[in-house]
C-alpha cells in the first residue's frame, strides 16, 4: 500500500525475496482454504460423521448456486495453492514455518466464512441435524476464529526479518 514502487507506476524494481514471500503466504492461505472446503467438509463432516447433508431439501436456488461456486472454488484453490508452492520452491528455499502459518490462517478464514455465511446467512446446510445447534455453531465459529488468530500470530512471528535493502 505504501509501497513506493506502486506510486511510481514506471519500471518497478521489486525485491524478488518480497515476491517470493508474498507468493508463499498466498499459496498457504489458498491451500488452507481449499483443504478446509474440500477435505474437512467432505471427508470428515459429510462422509465420515454423516452430519452434513448432501443437500437440504429446503435449500433456495441462491443458496444452491452459492454452494456450487464454493465447491468449485474449493477444489481450484487447493490445487492452485500447491502449484504456487511448487513455483516458489523451484525459485528459492521455501520458508516452511511461514507457509504453515498461512495454511492455519487459511483454514480458520474459510471455516469462519463457512460457519457464518453458509450455515447462518445463506442457510445452505447445517453442521448437524436434529439437535440443538447453538453449541455446535459456537464451537464451529469459535474454533474458526481461534485458528485464524493463531495463524495470523504465526504469520507475524515468521515475517522475514530483512525484506528490503
Amino acid at each position, binding site marked *: 500500500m505504501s509501497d513506493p514502487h506502486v506510486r511510481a507506476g514506471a519500471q518497478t524494481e*521489486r525485491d524478488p525475496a518480497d515476491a517470493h514471500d508474498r507468493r508463499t503466504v498466498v499459496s498457504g492461505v489458498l491451500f488452507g482454504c481449499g483443504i478446509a472446503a474440500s477435505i474437512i467438509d467432505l471427508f470428515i463432516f459429510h462422509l465420515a460423521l454423516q452430519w452434513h447433508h448432501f443437500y437440504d431439501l429446503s435449500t433456495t436456488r441462491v443458496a444452491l448456486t452459492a454452494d456450487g461456486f464454493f465447491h*468449485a472454488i474449493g477444489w481450484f484453490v487447493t490445487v492452485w495453492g500447491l*502449484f504456487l508452492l511448487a513455483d516458489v520452491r523451484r525459485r528459492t528455499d521455501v520458508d516452511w514455518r511461514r507457509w504453515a502459518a498461512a495454511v492455519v490462517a487459511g483454514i480458520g478464514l474459510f471455516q469462519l466464512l463457512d460457519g457464518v455465511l453458509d450455515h447462518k446467512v445463506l442457510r445452505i446446510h447445517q453442521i448437524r441435524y436434529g439437535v440443538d445447534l447453538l453449541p455446535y455453531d459456537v464451537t464451529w465459529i469459535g474454533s474458526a476464529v481461534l485458528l485464524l488468530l493463531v495463524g495470523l500470530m504465526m504469520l507475524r512471528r515468521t515475517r522475514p526479518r530483512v525484506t528490503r535493502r
Partner: protein
Amino acid sequence: MGHDHDHDHDHGTGHRLAEAGTGADALAWVLFDVLAAVALGAAAVAYAAGMWRASHRSPWSARRAVAWYLGLVLAAAGLLGPLAAEARSGFTAHMAVHLLVGMVAPLLLVLGAPVALTLRALPVGRARSLTRVLRGQVVRAVTHPVLAATLNAGGMWLLYTTDLYRLMHTSALLHGVVHAHIFLAGYVLTASLVGRDPDPHRSPVAVRAGVLIVFIAAHSVLAKWLYAHPPAGVDLADGRVGAQLMYYGGDVVDVIIIVLLLAGWYTSTDPRRRRASYPPSGQVSKAASG
C-alpha cells in the same frame, strides 16, 4: 444386441416403445449401435494409421497412444454393451454412461493429441491446408472455452430439466443426437481447457480457469438439484444415487482437469525456460509481473 433392446424397453421408461416396438424401431436402435461401433473402430484404425505413416519421424509418445485407445475403450463401454443397455432404463447407469462418454473418454482422447498426430502424418502441403483451417475464425469461435462450456452445461440442463430425458429413451434418433452432443461438447470443452494439440487460439490461463470454475459450479448445482428433483419417470432412490454419482464422479474428472490446467501454467512460467514474467528481475525490469 438387437434382441436385448426390445427386451429392455419393455420394462424401461419408454412405455410407448413397447407398443410401437416393432421392426422399424428395433432397426433404428441397432443402427445406433452399428454407427457407434463404426465410428469408434474408425477412430482406432485412423490413429494407428497416423502412427504408422509418421513412424519415420521422431517416435510418437506411447502415453498419448495409450490415452487415445483407453479413451476409445471407455467410450465403447458407455455406448455399447451391458452398461449401455442398462442405461436405457436406469438413471444411475445412465449417469455412469454420461460420465464415461461426456467426461472421462473426452479427456483421454484429448490427451491422445489426435490433431498433432494428423499433422505429422499428412504430407506437408495438406498439413499446411489443415493448419490454415485450424487457424481460421470458425475454429476459433467453435473452440472458445466460453462457448464450449455454455453448450456443454446448457445441453445438460436441457436434458435433465425438460422432457428430453424421457423422450431420449423412446427414440433412437434422439438418443443418438443426445449422445453425440454429450461427447462432442465434452471433447471440445476439455480440448479448449487442457488440449495437448497445437492450438493457435488458446485462451489465457485466467480465462480458462474462470470458465472451468463456472462449469464445475454448474455441474455440481445440477447434480444437487437432480438429487431432489429427478427427471420424470425416474425412481427417487435411483435418482439420488445417480445424482451423487454425477457429483462425485464429476469432481474426480474436474480435479484432474484443474491439475492439468495449472500444470500447463507451471510449465509455461518456468524461470529457466523464459525469464520474462515473474518476478521481474533486478536490472531488466521490463516485464510486468502477472
